[in-house]
């Protein structure tokens, strides 16, 4: 019996491990390394109505236990994603979560309407929090009313459940989460990247051509855990957690915090096999900790529970 299967709105997952949006392209590159059907799901790269080139390079800079990126939503556009990328992915037995982005409300609505019709797209991830696009993106993710409204509009046209991706760059993450829950979101994904910057020692100027970028990787994990801990207690929709995950232990920590599934981003760059490795290691770790099923870990950081007799750790 599987210890890892999880059901979430729109998603029947073999296991709760999926690559995070923007860190896995549309899967083609990583299909060289392993069978993508091993994954719980795949969050594909942000898709916009028109193709985008994104920001000038350099687009990445390293930081202590983290990295900054300012890719700028480069993607081949809705038509190509629907016509080529998603059909290619349909050869694998793995549900797709389509990351939807745009500059204005109508963009989001247009992408959501079309992409949610594609058979292997089982859910949408509304990217209202990308810190690397100039107009739009970030503002949607920091004003509760605006986020709620956008969620509502997208829900109206979407054929599949809608998850909203929250930005950590806010004073009050709970307020944002509640707003999009009110807007009809079926789930949350969090966290997107923290806005950061690095300067070049010689020139004094930002290393990234876009100046600021999004901080990801192990450095941000404590912020992600804290936010999921707070939000999971305040809303009743499930959370797909992310931010610095690189091991099976990290996955358990996110479940403890309150996540019901997780996404792995930056760690794919460091180790292309990280997702299947984690999936392989989780059952033994659950055994060691005394859990029969990963769902027992969910929310343990704040849920009351008696002394479990089956807790063997």
């Amino acid at each position, binding site marked *: 019996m599987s210890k890892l299967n999880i059901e979430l709105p729109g998603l029947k997952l073999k296991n709760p491990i999926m690559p995070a949006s923007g*860190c896995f*392209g549309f899967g083609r590159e990583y299909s060289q390394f392993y069978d993508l059907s091993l994954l719980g799901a795949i969050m594909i790269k942000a898709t916009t109505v028109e*193709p985008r080139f994104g920001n000038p390079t350099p687009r990445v800079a390293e930081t202590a236990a983290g990295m900054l990126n300012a890719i700028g939503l480069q993607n081949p556009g809705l038509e190509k994603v629907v016509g080529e990328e998603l059909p290619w992915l349909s050869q694998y037995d793995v549900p797709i979560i389509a990351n939807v982005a745009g500059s204005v409300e109508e963009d989001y609505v247009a992408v959501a309407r079309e992409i949610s019709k594609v058979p292997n797209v089982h859910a949408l991830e509304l990217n209202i929090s990308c810190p690397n696009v100039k107009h739009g993106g970030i503002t949607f993710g920091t004003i509760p009313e605006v986020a709620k409204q956008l969620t509502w509009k997208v829900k109206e046209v979407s054929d599949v459940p809608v998850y909203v991706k929250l930005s950590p760059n806010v004073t009050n993450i709970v307020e944002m989460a509640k707003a999009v829950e009110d807007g009809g979101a079926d789930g949350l994904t969090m966290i997107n990247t923290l806005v950061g910057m690095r300067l070049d020692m010689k020139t004094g100027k930002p290393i990234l051509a876009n100046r600021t970028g999004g901080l990801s990787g192990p450095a941000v994990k404590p912020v992600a855990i804290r936010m999921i801990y707070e939000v999971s207690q305040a809303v009743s929709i499930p959370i797909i957690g992310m931010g610095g995950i690189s091991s099976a232990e990290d996955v358990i920590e996110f479940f403890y915090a309150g996540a019901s599934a997780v996404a792995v981003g930056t760690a794919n760059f460091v180790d292309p096999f990280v997702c299947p490795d984690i999936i392989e290691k989780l059952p033994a770790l659950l055994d060691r900790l005394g859990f029969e099923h990963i769902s027992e870990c969910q929310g343990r950081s704040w849920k009351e529970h008696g002394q479990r007799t089956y807790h063997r750790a």
Partner: protein
Amino acid sequence: MIQKELCRIIGQREIAADIYELTIKANLVKEISEPGQFVHIRVAKHDPLLRRPISISSYDKEARQLKMIYRKEGKGTTLLAEMVEGMEVDILGPLGNGFPIEEVSAGETALLVGGGIGVPPLYELSKQLKAKGVKVIHVLGFQTKSAVFYEQEFLQNGETFVTTVDGSYGFKGFVTDIMKDLQFDILYTCGPTPMLRAIEQKYSNKKLFLSLEERMGCGVGACFACVCKRPNDLSGVSYKKVCSDGPVFRAGEVFI
């Protein structure tokens, strides 16, 4: 096929000021298809986080050995330089597309131009061209005398001109100063971007292949960190990735 392998270090030595030659035992050597491909090296668990792209400078498929030459610069290469024989290093590779040797025939002349830390990948290229019967000429540019390496090795394959910016060794000046007096059928080059730009401008009429550098995330084409624009692109959205389409491009293929 790209492999991820823990490779044993069988040699590490400083061959010039802050320039190290690292030799490893690696099964992934069998997957190398061309000189000019690179590997992606992980030097720590979380800090530094990202892998470091380093060119393959030479390899021996039978002995399953691979050499790299790198400059100790920042965090990652400093840690790498501290590793000693017997230790294991996590390598992802071979990555990318290298220098096409089928573009030149036996009897023709190839000019190989390298700048600083762009010199290493040219060494395997030089060996393979010579083995093929191509006449090879090298122009190698360095900052200063203490940074010069592999002159003897290149000399064994063909005529070799060394330049230093400060004139402390070889010819004083830039590689382009030497190049203008040389005759050749094909030009392969690797080095700092300003050098590549200068060469592309002057030799756009020649058969020219350039190896580019860009900051990388994944190294395998997934993260879009390393894209370059294509010239004459009306749509403004077409691109090539240095990691998986390059690092070697034909002149004109991408905007340098």
